Structures are given as C-alpha cells and as structure tokens.
C-alpha cells in the first residue's frame, strides 16, 4: 500500500537528480501559473492557483525551512509576473510553513513519519491526498485574496473568490496528479 516504504533511502546519488527534478517542477508550475492560469479569471475573479502542488513533491523528511523558503521564492516569482508584489510571496510562504503540519494532519492514520514519503495519490490514497491538497490550496487562496484585497469589508466576496479559486486549483492539481501517476516511471519522482 505504501510505496514509500519500499523506496530507496535518499542518498547523494539519488538526491541530486531528485533536486533537479524538483527544480523542473518548480519552473514548470511557475510558468504554468504565469503564462496560462493567471489569465483565467473565471466569473471575473476566480483564479486557479495550483502551484502549491510543489509542496506535494517534497518528501516528508525535508527540513521545514525548505518549505518556507521555496514557498517564498515561488510566490515572489509569481508576484514578479503578476505585478502583485509581496502578495503571493506572503501567502505561499505561510502555506509552506503550514504544509508539513497539514501533511501530519491528513496523513493516513497510524502512519509514523519514521520513514519519509512523498505525498501523492499513491502514497496517501486519493482522498487523504486531495484533502491535503485542498487544505493547502484553500489556505493559499484565502491568504492571497485577503492580502490582495487588504480589507475585510467585502468578506463575502472574498470567501466566494477563495472558494471558487480553491475549486479550480484543486481540479488542476487533481489533473496534474492523475497525469503524473499515470506516466510515473517506477522510480521517477520517488512516487
């Protein structure tokens, strides 16, 4: 059931290609966001933001500061392209901080973190994985739109935007995950 249990330990020869792969994913998600998804404004304001999927690529033994730092970097780069300085960075950085805790929360019950695993539909089953992804996206979207609006005056509208965006983002993440799972090589992305 848990493929992670059978995966080889992360040692230097494996780590380097893994890191490179993550860089590809990082760039890929970034480009997807700024080139395509940022131009989708469904119903006027819902923007799919599946880039938090990047946190799903980090194995559970990743130092937590890496989540924070990569989250910040990802958000900042997106900000550069969308001319929303600091908004994405702050939101994604906070999401990065929360990611490991959320993962603990939604990890399959009884799972001990003794052996690292990469969260995915295969390691966690679909529903737990989707719950984890939804929580990440929800948090990120909420913070993003809150900071962008910078007021609680239009709270209803904020919630609507957040929910719609979360819905869209989750759909995108599920699609990506489905694709990845379908095309995954046995050792591919450690998943």
């Amino acid at each position, binding site marked *: 059931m848990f493929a992670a249990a059978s995966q080889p330990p992360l040692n230097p020869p494996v780590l380097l290609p893994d890191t490179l792969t993550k860089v590809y994913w990082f760039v890929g998600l970034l480009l997807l966001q700024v080139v395509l998804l940022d131009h989708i404004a469904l119903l006027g304001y819902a923007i799919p933001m599946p880039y938090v999927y990047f946190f799903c690529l980090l194995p559970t033994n990743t*130092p*937590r*500061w890496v*989540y*924070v*730092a990569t989250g*910040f970097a990802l*958000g*900042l780069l997106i*900000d550069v392209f969308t001319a*929303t*300085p*600091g*908004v994405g*960075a*702050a939101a994604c*950085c*906070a999401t*990065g*901080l929360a990611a490991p805790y959320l993962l603990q929360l939604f990890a399959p019950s009884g799972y001990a973190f003794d052996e690292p695993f990469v969260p995915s539909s295969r390691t966690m089953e679909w529903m737990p994985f989707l719950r984890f992804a939804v929580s990440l996206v929800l948090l990120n979207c909420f913070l993003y739109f809150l*900071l962008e609006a*910078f*007021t609680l005056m239009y709270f209803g509208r904020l919630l609507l935007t957040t929910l719609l965006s979360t819905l869209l983002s989750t759909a995108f993440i599920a699609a990506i995950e489905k694709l990845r799972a379908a095309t995954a090589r046995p050792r591919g992305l450690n998943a």
Partner: protein
Amino acid sequence: MRNLLLFLQRYTHILLFLVLELVSLALLFSYGRKQGTAFFNATGTVVGGINSLWADAAAYSHLREVNTRLEDENTRLKMQNDALRQMVDEQRHTPTATEQRLADVLKKYPLIPAKVTSNEQRADRLNHLIINRGRNDGVRDGMGVVGGGGVVGVVAEASANYALVVPVTHQRSAISCRLRGTGWFGYLVWEGGSKLTAYLDDIPRYADVTRGMAVETSGYSDIFPPGIFVGNVLAVGSGPDGQSLRLTVHLATDFSNLRDVSVVGNIARSQTDTLRNHAAFNEGVLEKK
C-alpha cells in the same frame, strides 16, 4: 548558549518564515498601491498621533522660554501703554480752576517747560530737584519754578543743560506768600515731615484767618509773580515767637509725584535789575560829582 543554538535550530523555519513574511509585507506596502495606501492610512493615524504628542512635549519643554519672551514683551507693551496713556491724558487733560488761574497769572511771563529728572528726598531735609533745562535754555539762578498745582521752588544753580531747584520742601526754603484776598503776608517754610504740609509764619495775631483760605505768592520777591497758588490753610496755630500766627498750609503741589514743571522767566526782574543798576550808577555819579 547551547540552548539558544538548539532553540534556533529547532525553530529555524519559524524564524525564516517571520523574516520572509516581513519582506513580503514590506514589498506589499511599498509597491502595492492599494495596500500601501491602506497601510499608510492606518499607520499615518498612529504616526500622526505620535508626532503630535512629540510636538506637544517639545512645546511644553519650550514653555519656559516662551514665558520669558512673553514676559519681556508684556513689560515692553506695558511701558509703551503707560507712555501712550500719559500722552493721551496730556492731550485730554481739562485744566482745573487752579490750573486755569495759574495759567492766567503766568500768561505774562515767559515760561520754560522742563521735566524733573531727579527728585531727591534726603534725611537732612535738604531735598532738591534737578530739571532738564539749564543756562542754554535760559534758566538762571534764582528763577521760580511752578508746577501744575502751584509753586514748586527756586532755581539754586543752573548748569549748561540742567538746573538744581530748591523746592518748597527744603528746610531753608522761604518763599514770600500772602493770604489771597487779604494783605497779610509771611514766609512759607517747611520743617520736614509730610511733603504735603508747610507753615506760613509771621502772620499777625489779629489777622482774621480761617481754615481753607488760599495761600498764594505775594510777588514781593522777584522770584515769583504775585498770585501763584501755593496751598490752603489747614490749621491756624501760634507762632514760635508768640507774637504771630503760624498757619499750617496744605501744599497744592505733590512733591512726591512731580514730573512736568515750568521755570518762570521773570521779565520784571530784569526791569528791577535795570532800575537798581541805574540807581547804583546814579549814586556812583553823584559820589563822583
């Protein structure tokens, strides 16, 4: 130290998170138009409040200096106000009956207006005044000095620009005076004490003197023209020799508060001098003959 390092190691991600969030928010507030405005609106209130508090404190600490300046200005304005009020009073002043009469009496005489620059009150009763007119202004020794209320004194010595006046309130001052409306005359002397009272001696015992009668200059000396008001009879007493009356006179001039006076240039005096000279000359001529 070790604990600190352990702590830092354990919470690296939290610290990093805080730092990066600060950076993000800094970016947000400095480049985000809407957020920056909102941020500065909020902080502006706080900063404005602090600034105004600071300004208040600064103002409070400057109060002493401000107070000193205000006091200086106040003093200056008060002095100015006094000066102006005095000028207004001088302009508005309606002369009293005494002053009117005095002015009438003095109309025939050249007057040299002067101001009292020194009014010395001495323990030995030899008081004197100094006025700011001297020989250059025509003041000569022996000229009379009158004030608004009446007789002031006699010029004892005149320098180029100042003159020393022996006032009525000088122990050796003796001015020939008479009771207005009668022929009785005597000498006005002062013996210390109040500057408002002097004595008129040498009035015969049989003179019908009542309290309140006016005392004026007799004109028997060349110093004052006749009829200048001196004061009123306050009390009728017996003279030191027992042969005459001694009248206590309430002086019309307040010597404690004397500012504007006039020196009386006596024309008659020059005429009398001329007569005396003529007499002396004639006597000399007669002797020569």
